[in-house]
């Protein structure tokens, strides 16, 4: 399978990427690692006329300790997030979850920024960063702005990024108790997307693939805040969700999985804390 014809442009800097997207507008798409976009293009579910390759923006691949938060460059590959000493120490949930994305080959190419900007609710890292209360930094023609991750995901593959904006950095606040984390992912085969997944950091609980966007399990978080035991709090996991019925699972099965995985995640997180 090959994509529909397009024009390939390689940007050498963020400024050049923004110039290119200003020039080509809606016909253009940014390409980071390409492991979400290229498969869609091969299936002809996406057919951009211009591809702006960001792989030349090497200065956007980094993980740095900024005191109260860890800054991760948007073009940092999953492999590098997985093996970051800073993240292993301060945000082990993110380092671990990055190592659960796809397979080693995919992690050698796919990037954290690409995964977030693609906004597939079945992807692992959007929910993980939601549980971590991350802040996203976007650069556009009008300058740079910060977007709280809670305002970022607008719908299936839709974000609050403007068409001429580039996601440049993910800022992850260091959790008060870094060890109180868990990531649970249920899939049928090793490299599948999660049928349902769950990320827990302290009292924050986020769900993978339980709606059109990654979701915070507000009912679970409220019950935990009221002092509920993990298994009792987990009973609220499907509240406010809108999981799909599809060939992989029914909605009822996904809701069941959400309760089971949240219970396991809360138990594991509290045992680690």
């Amino acid at each position: 399978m090959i994509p529909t014809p397009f024009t390939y442009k390689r940007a050498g800097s963020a400024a050049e990427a923004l110039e290119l997207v200003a020039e080509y507008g809606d016909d253009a798409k940014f390409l980071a690692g390409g492991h979400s976009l290229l498969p869609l293009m091969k299936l002809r579910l996406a057919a951009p006329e211009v591809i702006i390759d960001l792989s030349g923006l090497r200065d956007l691949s980094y993980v740095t300790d900024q005191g109260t938060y860890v800054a991760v460059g948007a073009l940092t590959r999953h492999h590098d997030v997985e093996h970051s000493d800073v993240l292993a120490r301060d945000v082990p949930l993110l380092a671990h979850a990055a190592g659960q994305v796809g397979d080693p080959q995919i992690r050698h190419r796919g990037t954290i920024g690409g995964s977030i900007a693609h906004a597939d609710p079945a992807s692992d890292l959007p929910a993980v960063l939601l549980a971590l209360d991350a802040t996203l930094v976007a650069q556009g023609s009008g300058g740079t702005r910060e977007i709280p991750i809670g305002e970022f995901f607008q719908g299936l593959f839709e974000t609050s990024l403007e068409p001429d904006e580039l996601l440049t950095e993910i800022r992850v606040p260091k959790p008060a108790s870094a060890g109180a984390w868990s990531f649970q992912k249920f899939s049928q085969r090793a490299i599948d997307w999660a049928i349902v997944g769950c990320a827990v950091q302290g009292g924050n609980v986020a769900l993978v693939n339980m709606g059109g966007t990654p979701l915070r399990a507000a009912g679970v978080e409220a019950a935990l805040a009221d002092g509920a035991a993990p298994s009792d709090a987990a009973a609220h996991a499907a509240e406010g969700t809108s999981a799909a019925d599809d060939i992989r699972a029914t909605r009822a099965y996904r809701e069941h999985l959400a309760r089971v995985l949240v219970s396991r995640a809360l138990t594991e997180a509290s045992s680690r804390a």
Partner: protein
Amino acid sequence: MKVDLTVNGKDISADVEDRMLLVHFLRDVADLTATNVGCDTTSCGACTVLLDGESVKSCTVLAAQASGHEITTVEGLATNGEMHPVQRAFHQEHGLQCGFCTPGMVMAIVSLLKENPDPSEQQVRQGLEGNLCRCTGYHNIVRAALAAADEGKVSA
């Protein structure tokens, strides 16, 4: 567009369509047909090659993205007519049946052992999660990976 790749140590320049996939560049332009197209959906790993020394699925990389980079295919592993330790281990441990997944398996293991020269059996199995064998040959493939790691320890 013009792309310049180094494939198995040899510089190859060509005019290709912007949309050409790396696997098609390797097979149709570089005439290196050991790298197979299997699922064509980033799942099976049959098309695994090394890009700057790391395993990637060449069905999900554009030739244009690989321009300026070094690619190694299974044809590039042997030196002076002598098989690479991973190739030798596949031979010794009978790590293949039909052979379709083998080039990708070998390249995935070369990359895995570079990152972790002394993996446990569990780490090998997890490290090969992106490569499918439909002959149910995983046991001997894992044995081959572990044998190649052992040989690396002896020669190191």
